[in-house]
């Protein structure tokens, strides 16, 4: 498909989160499961994504909060590993992700009769993310500008265009690959959409996208097409 004559510029948005307390807490797996069925989607989003922003410097990163609590507090290592291994890239909606978390825990509970209880003070406290989506001043009209912006934006912008876009706004994929596709860059779009943001630090993700975009911009320049 030929690229549209005038692709829309890409404006970077940033997602900034405020945390709400739900006053829901779980002492064991049965309680965790019961709350998982009932809590709003923004609670599931919080506990599967806040590590990525709060601990974005760590590599390897800790997994989602459920896996961390089950492993470190309940010391149910096998289930902790199963929860950590849930491939978040597979899911297009929070509903589907919630269902998977429930199935994994249910499957584990079917095999076990005794429930371990968290020590007092180490219960799982459910929290909820309120995301504020703010337009940033950074706008790109071509690949070179896009790579330049990537170096300046905060982690809130990376988080918005990779995580919020896919799961909270259910756009089906990340915004970056979507936009470069409008420039006719199908191969670059495929490369970006293949990146698993959950196994990179946000800084690593930023460098990787910037590297791919810059490489392609140089190819275009050397072919006299840029």
């Amino acid at each position, binding site marked *: 498909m030929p690229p549209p004559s005038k692709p829309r510029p890409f404006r970077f948005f940033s997602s*900034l989160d405020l945390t709400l307390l739900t006053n829901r807490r779980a002492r064991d797996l049965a309680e965790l499961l019961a709350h998982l069925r009932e809590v709003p*989607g923004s609670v599931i989003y919080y506990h599967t994504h806040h590590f990525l922003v709060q601990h974005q*410097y760590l590599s390897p990163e800790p997994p989602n909060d459920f896996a961390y609590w089950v492993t470190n507090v309940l010391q149910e290592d096998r289930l902790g590993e199963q929860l950590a291994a849930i491939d978040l890239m597979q899911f297009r909606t929070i509903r589907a992700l919630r269902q998977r978390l429930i199935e994994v825990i249910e499957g584990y509970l079917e095999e076990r009769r005794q429930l371990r209880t968290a020590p007092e003070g180490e219960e799982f406290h459910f929290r909820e993310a*309120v995301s504020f989506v*703010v*337009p940033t001043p950074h706008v790109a009209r071509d690949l070179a500008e896009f790579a330049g912006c990537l170096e300046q934006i905060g982690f809130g*912008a990376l988080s918005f265009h990779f995580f919020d876009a896919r799961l909270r706004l259910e756009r089906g994929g990340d915004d970056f690959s979507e936009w470069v596709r409008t420039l006719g860059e199908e191969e670059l779009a495929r490369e970006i959409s293949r990146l698993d943001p959950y196994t990179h630090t946000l800084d690593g993700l930023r460098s990787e996208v910037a590297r791919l975009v810059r490489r392609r911009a140089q190819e275009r320049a050397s072919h006299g097409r840029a």
Partner: protein
Amino acid sequence: MAALDRYEEFVGRGTIEELRLLGAHLAGRRIVTVNSTAVGGGVAEILNQLVPLSREVGVDIRWEVIKGGEDFFGVTKRLHNALHGKSETFSTRDWEIFRETTERNCAELDLDADVVFIHDPQPAGLIAARRPDRGHWVWRCHIDVSAPQADAWEFVAGYVARYDATVFSAPQFARDLALPQVMIAPSIDPHSDKNRDLSDSEIERILDRLKVPRDKPIITQVSRFDRLKDPVGVIAAFRLARKYNDCRLVLAGGSATDDPEGAEVLAAVHEAANGDPDIHVLELPPTANIEINALQRASTVILQKSLKEGFGLTVSEALWKGKPVIAGAVGGIPLQITHRYSGILTHTVEGTAFWIRQLLNAPDYARRLGANGREHVRNNFLLTRHLRDYLLLFLFLEHRDERVIRLH
């Protein structure tokens, strides 16, 4: 240079830009914040930092302080203790004193604003001055109310229930309330004397003055001499670790001259130390910020072996210095330390000793923990994050039922 720009070296231009963007979204809103004192105490310290920074990003914010007599502040001191779970007795007269002072302040203070932001129990009753359909009211609780004395909480909750939102510092402090409860953790200021960079020669000079030699690894705990900080347990853990690793212990805390309970704990600490030349028990004045900073920077491992804790911000202070921290998994500490990623969480004397040895014998791992800890504080516990959360809170009040809020 604007005060806010001084934080760019720690958090980057993007974060400062975000704060200015959020400030612009609050243009035209008038905010008033009220607490019980202009100087002294943690809340006044926070407001002294955050009010000017809020103004710098364009927020129209006023700071008011309630007035009260000794009798009122006597009641609120006991109310504060009871909310913390300490046993206190209240008479009908106590509640009358609280109400009378509240009424006088309601009459005297200008609370006409788009957001009225009230800190702690002392001014909580000002909600009585709320005019229908005017402004959003938020109660910010800085204290640990996870196990309050029932009558004290009931009294405060009568007021709190009339607010639009509450703010607590940690998840376990949340209460059963029919209004949104926001979590906003406290923060440290990287420019303060307690946290700013110190040169090696400054550190050397201060340790010389405190008579702490640097000939072997130093293990340090900075905290009040309070049973809940378990200083005697720290000495026991140090002795277990020292069987295999030669090291020194520094226990640094405030002087306990005005506090009978503190004096008792201090005596128990001296008894447990038993004149050991490798154990340094330092009683420091409340102004000893640079001394604490230097002790933390000179340490190889820092402990916060609390048995119960409010938020435990000394952990963030230690992590900010890039030190590996071993701490009790209580209060707000698990928010600051993710076990084996950004520090170590322990539950026992033996576990603490085990991890002291591990960290002394695996300096590369200890360095990585410290580096991760510092990054965690950079992203989550610096003053700029605190300011961002307050700005988001003010915006949230206009969108309380939404979970994805688009600002244009």
